[in-house]
């Protein structure tokens, strides 16, 4: 299970890279709303990837 979560964090990292790429590509394609959408998703996915590693730092 722990290895599956490790793999999930790596997949989330790759997904964040794709989301950031889509966001900037959308900015170039004059789709500002879509750009904002993908950039927010990228940031959230990256945050999730970090939280999977350090549960204590993110627990409130």
């Amino acid at each position, binding site marked *: *299970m*722990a*290895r*599956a*979560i*490790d793999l999930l*964090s*790596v997949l989330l*990292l*790759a997904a*964040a*890279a*794709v989301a*950031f*790429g889509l*966001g*900037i*590509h959308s*900015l*170039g394609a*004059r789709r*500002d709303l879509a750009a904002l*959408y993908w*950039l*927010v*998703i*990228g*940031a*959230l*996915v*990256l*945050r*999730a*990837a*970090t*939280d*999977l*590693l*350090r*549960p*204590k730092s*993110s*627990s409130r």
Partner: protein
Amino acid sequence: MVGAESQSPSHKLVARANMLLPGLYAWVTTVAFPAAQRSAPASARVTAMAALVALVAGPVVVFERPRLGRALGVLLFVALSVTTWLLLRSVIGVQHLEPVRASLGAVGWALFAFGWGAVRRAGSVPEEDPHVIRAEPLTPRGQLPWSALWVYSIGLVGAVLVLLLAWQVVRPAQALLAHAVAVVAAIALVSVAARIAVERGRARTFPAPKPRLNAAARPLATVLLLIALGFVWLMLR
């Protein structure tokens, strides 16, 4: 620069060239070229020439008077270059920037910084220094798994792709925003990739999987919600 006073004349010449040539390249591409434009004010040309004088004077005196050399060749040169840019104002506006020349100029400034940096002399061993403090060698606390390289590579490739994609944005204002966002995203991707790569090597110290999933539940749920909203928006459009 380290132990410069004991260097031979040929070594000093090479060291001076290392300091001067990258700075000269950076000056030509980013300071002299815009200052030579017809619309550039005369004051900018004066400061640009003064920057060149400081750039040349620094390496000339650095071995005899290191502090003065650095003050002239680094601080004064950079200060006069910045003053030139401030005086040039609209001549170096975003709409007048040529991407390739700007990129080459940035590389020139990076090389200028390296040229003034100090490195260990080839062949020298730090432990042979007479001032070294003898102690037991430090052993590494852990070893990275082979997969760490792949994880870090994913972040690095993603960061490079994001930075390259930013050059596709042609609208001036949005292009600036795209580059700023791309730099932030690239830094975040590389940082998180490094953390994942390093932390995976210490996986045994992690708590049970459930707290880890719980910690990431909030951002993951928000992502899922946003994806669902995106699908709804696509279907309604």
